[in-house]
């Protein structure tokens, strides 16, 4: 995924989003999200495309994107596994859940597997505190996840595609 499949289609979608707002600049976050879905992560070309669609500069769009955790400026795996390690989840064993994912996936937190399929990272409070540990796979929450649940989750993700 190195280009948007159809640039004019991308620009049309961004224009549609922008029409919801009094100022088209409000569409930066949704447009970046759309570009990230198409490019995999936010490449230089992705920023140029978003900037063109909204009449901004690539530097401006990069500056905005770098503020937000959900935008990826580097490649990420097709399966993004995020483990919440904030206080409530940590109190009920998030660190052990994280270590179970590290061992099952064979990568450390913050890393992407060599085949590009998995990225594992810790995140700050995901908002499922009473049902911890919260694990999100491509932003779909699984809660609560216990250490003993991890092998089956990884098995399921490996057999998906």
């Amino acid at each position, binding site marked *: 995924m190195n280009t948007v499949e159809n640039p004019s289609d991308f620009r049309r979608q961004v224009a549609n989003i922008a029409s919801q707002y009094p100022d088209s600049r409000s569409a930066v976050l949704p447009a970046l999200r759309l570009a990230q879905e198409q490019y995999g992560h936010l490449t230089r070309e992705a920023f140029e495309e978003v900037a063109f669609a909204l009449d901004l500069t690539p530097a401006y769009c990069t500056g905005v994107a770098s503020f937000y955790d959900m935008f990826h400026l580097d490649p990420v795996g097709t399966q993004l596994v995020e483990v919440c390690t904030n*206080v409530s989840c940590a109190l009920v064993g998030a660190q052990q859940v994280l270590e179970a994912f590290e061992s099952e996936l064979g990568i450390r937190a913050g890393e992407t597997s060599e085949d590009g399929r998995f990225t594992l990272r*810790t995140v700050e409070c995901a908002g499922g505190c009473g049902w911890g540990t919260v694990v999100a796979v491509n932003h779909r929450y699984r809660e609560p996840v216990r250490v003993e649940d991890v092998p089956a989750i990884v098995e399921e993700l490996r057999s998906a595609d």
Partner: protein
Amino acid sequence: MPIERFVLKGAEDGALTQIDDYRAVGGFESLAKARAMEPAKIVDELLASNIRGRGGAGFPMGKKASFLAKGTGKPTYLVVNADESEPGTFKDREIMFLVPHRLIEGCLIAAHGIESKNVFIYIRGEYLHEFEILRAALDQVREADLLDGVTIVLHRGAGAYICGEETALLESLEGKRGQPRSKPPFPAVQGLYASPSLINNVETVATVPLIIEMGGAKYAKEGVENSAGTRLFSLSGNVVNGGNYELPLGTPLRELIYDIGGGIPDGRALKAVIPGGSSVPVLTADQVDTALDFDSMAAAKTMLGSGAVIVIDDRCCMVQLGLRVAQFYMHESCGKCTPCREGTRWMVQILEKIEDGRAEYEELDLLLDVCDRILGKCLCPLGDAAAMPVASYVDRFRDDFRRHIDEGGCPFPDSPLDHVLAPVDQHAHDVHVLA
């Protein structure tokens, strides 16, 4: 024990995600009633209800609405803050997936009250499921012809705690980095697109239909003085039954933790309670009879905050807790104000040193001094949110800190927070350099 349901009324047996199900429990009747009322009368009802914001700051909604600048020639905006991210808090999420139409009904009533035709719901980016539910509910409301010329835009955030701060939220909604603005001007005068804007939390807005239904004066009689109504308390941590529980304000903390929450698992003892999200000062075990309302929490030198109650058992090391909390705020500092940007980093470094047993006594004072140099010296409350809780851990659990220094290391071998990996320590955390 009967749990009174106001905001979650009707969802006792499951989610009300279909408009017909919501209507079957009286949904949208308040909207019809409200639309037959003069807008100013809606604001009067909100004022009479004494409802205070459920996001954390507790500012009365009616007062906020009455501050909106009039006759500016600009549109007035209603902005719903669904960027729930205060650690420990997961109640707005439950409102959105259990009773999404109630939030929309609240938006439409509030919009009528402030004569706004434009509503924006800023929902945190991670809440994908809740976004989809809300989007489907909004489609149903549109098809049912209930919008009456009002547009409601669902705007997804992209991962930034600070965007829950109202002016940072506005910046983000305008397509910028989410850095708070200096106030004044307040959003009621110059908010979204420099126009008068009312910003309220999901739970607050979702309570509006009920206030219209029962009348503000009657609503004000629920709960206790200065804390009208119910709140959805998020219960988490070392407790048997974690979850969200809607209770009248003034309910004793003990009742929530033990009677409703089932107490501490595995027969362990209570050590501490964070009563309102990770940014508030901690309570000790002997303060567990404090009532869950604004004034009682203030008297106990803490805050009700977002209503997020985090239960901590006796295995926990309070130095590790302070470190993890400080790491969070360091990670989420927007970088605009020096005391917060640099101070949170200092806090983390000193706490790491204490935890590792490398600190001297004077570094405890240094830690408190850093906290003091953050408190009240930043544009937004994020700096305070880091300094207040950590200072309270030192103040109320000084022995935990002293023992690290005296014993040259952590004396809590079973603490669940031992070496927990925070995102700020994750080297490959991917957003810092352009590939």
